[in-house]
C-alpha cells in the first residue's frame, strides 16, 4: 500500500508481490467483516413460522344464515344466498384495518350493506367496490371450498379470486 501510483505496473504486467498480498489482505479482512453482517441480517428473516394456517375450516355451509356473516378471527365476511356462497376479505385495501359492516337503507327500499373502515374512512359497497375514502381497490374475494373429510366450508386466505366470484355448494 505504501507504493504510490508510480509503482503500479501497466495493465497486463504482473503486479508486485507486496501489492498483491496487500490487496488480498484487505479483501479478506473485508470479507471477514461482511460475512457475520450478512449472517446477522439473514438470521432475522424467519424460515420457520408459527402462524395461523391460511386455509381454515369455518363450519358446515348450512350453519350460515342468508346474507353476510362476519368471522372475526379470520377477518372475512361470508355471504350466503341459498346454495351460493362468496367470501369477502375484511382487510381494508388501504392500510389493513378491519372494515366494519354498516347496514344502510336503500333508496329503492330494502336494506343493503356497506363496509366502512375506522382508520382512514374508506367505504366499500356490498360487492366490495370502493366508493369513498383512500382505498385504492375493492376488497379481495377469497377462495371458498368444501373440506373433503367433513364437508365444512373452507376459507383460503392466501388465494384471491376475481370480483364477483361465487361458490355453489
Amino acid at each position, binding site marked *: 500500500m505504501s507504493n504510490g501510483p508510480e509503482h503500479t505496473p501497466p495493465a497486463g504486467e504482473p503486479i508486485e508481490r507486496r501489492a498483491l498480498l496487500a490487496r488480498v489482505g484487505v479483501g479478506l479482512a473485508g470479507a471477514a467483516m461482511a460475512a457475520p453482517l450478512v449472517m446477522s441480517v439473514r438470521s*432475522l*428473516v*424467519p424460515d420457520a*413460522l*408459527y*402462524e*395461523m394456517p391460511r386455509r381454515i375450516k369455518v363450519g358446515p355451509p348450512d350453519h350460515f344464515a342468508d346474507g353476510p356473516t*362476519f368471522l*372475526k*378471527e379470520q*377477518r372475512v365476511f361470508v355471504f350466503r344466498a341459498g346454495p351460493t356462497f362468496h367470501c369477502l376479505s375484511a382487510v381494508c*385495501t*388501504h*392500510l*389493513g*384495518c*378491519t372494515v*366494519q359492516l354498516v347496514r344502510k337503507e336503500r333508496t329503492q327500499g330494502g336494506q343493503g350493506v356497506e363496509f*366502512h*373502515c*375506522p*382508520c*382512514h*374512512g374508506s*367505504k366499500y359497497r356490498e360487492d366490495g367496490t370502493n366508493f369513498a*375514502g*383512500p*382505498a*385504492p*381497490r375493492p376488497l379481495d374475494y377469497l377462495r371458498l371450498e368444501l373440506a373433503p373429510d367433513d364437508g365444512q366450508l373452507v376459507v383460503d386466505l392466501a388465494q384471491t379470486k376475481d370480483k364477483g366470484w361465487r361458490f355453489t355448494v
Partner: protein
Amino acid sequence: MAEETLTRGQDGKRRLSLRDLTWSWNPATPREAGDAVVRNFLLHWFPNKVAKASIASRYSMWLGVISLFLFLNLTLTGVVLMFLYVPSVERAYGSIKDLEYAVSFGRFLRALHRISAHLMVIAVFLHMVRVFLTGAYKNGVLARQNRRLNWCLGLAMLLVTLLLSFTGYLLPWDQLAFWAVTVGTNIAKAVPVAGEAVRFVLLGGHEINQNTLIRFYVLHCVFLPMLLAGLAAWHLWRVRKDGGLAARDRVALGERQEAAPPVPSKTYMLLGIASGRAPDVQTSLVDPERHLVPAVPGLLRRLLVVALVTFAATSALAIWMGAPLEAPANPDVTPNPAKAPWYFLWLQELVTVTTVRLGGWTINGALVGGVIVPGLLLLWACAAPWLDRSGPEATGVWFHRARRRANGIFLAICVALIVLTVIGTFLRGPYWNFYWPWEAWPAHPARY
C-alpha cells in the same frame, strides 16, 4: 466559611455577590476557569470559553439542550422500566397493568417516560425550527465549518426520535399498539418492490405476533437509543468543531475590522495566516473581554438550570397527566376511530387524503402520503442549506431579510403539518369522518 464565599472582582478586590448563596465557587482568573474544565472528567468536552451570544436564551432557547436532557431522562427511566416490563404478547399488557397498579412508583415512572417522549418530539421539532429560522445551518466566517452536515445529522436525529416514539408506544400491546403496527408496517409494505420484504422482516412473519413484539422491543431499547446517542455525540462534536453556535459567527463578523495582526505569544497555522481563514486567527478577532465568558461557570450554571427546569416540568406533567392504556390488543376488532398519537396524526391525515386516481390508475395514499410526501419533505429539508444563497451575514440571526423566502416556505410547511395534526386530533370521529368539536359523534357499534 464566610471568607471563602468572597470572590475577587475585576479590580482584584473581594466582594460578596448574591450568586454565592447558590454557587460557592467562582474562578478569580480566566486561567482558574479554564483549569476547571481541563481538570474535570465530566467537563472535559466543554470549551474553555463560550460566546455570550451563544448562551443567550433568546437566541437558542436551549431547545437542543432540553432535547438532550429529555433523552437522558428517557434513558434513565427506560432502563428501570426494562426491569419491570416483559416483552411477550401474553404478558406485556399485564406487566404494564402491574406498573400502573402494583409496582411502587411504577405509575409515576411510566408517566415520566411517556411525557418525556412527547416533550422530546416537541423539543426536537422546535429545535429544528429554531435552527432554520436563525439560518444556523449556514457556515459563517470560521474555517472548516460544516454546519450543513450537522443540519442533516439533526434531521436524522428527528427521524430516530419519531421511530423511538413509534416503537415505544407499541410495547404496551394494547389496541393503540396493535393497530399502529398494522398501519405502520402496511405503509412500509406500500413501497414498490422492496415493501413486501421489509414488512415481512419488520413483523418477523406475515402477521403481528411475538416475533413482531420482540423486534420492536430490541429496536426501542437497544438499537435506536444507541444510534441516537451516537448521532448526538457526533452532532455536539460538530458544534464544537464549527466554533460554537452560529450566533458566534455574527460576533466575529461584526468584529472583523478590529482584527489584530498575529502576535508572537500565540500559535498560528501557517496556511491559516496566508488565507486569513484559520480558526485561530479568526477566533482572535472576537474580543474575549467583551464577547466571551469562561464555560465554567457561565455555561455550566445555565445547563444545570435548564436541566432542573426540564426535570421539574416533566415530573409535574407526569403527575398531572399520567399515561393512558387502552384495551388489550385485539386483532379481531379495530377501534373506531383508530387514532395514532398526536405527533403522527398529520401522517394519518396525509395517507387518508392522498390516494391519487388518474383514469384507471390508482396510487394508494399509503405510498403517496406515507412515503413519497414525507420523503420529499425530508429531501427538501436536507437540501435546504445548499439551496440557501444568502451570505454569511444571514447566519445566526432570527428572520434575516436575505432569508425571507426560505423562512416563509419553511414556516408554511410547519403550519400545514400543525393544521393537519389539529384536524386529526380534534376534528375526526368514527370512520374518520369530519366532525366539529361541538358536534356529537353518532352512536356506532364500538365492537362486534
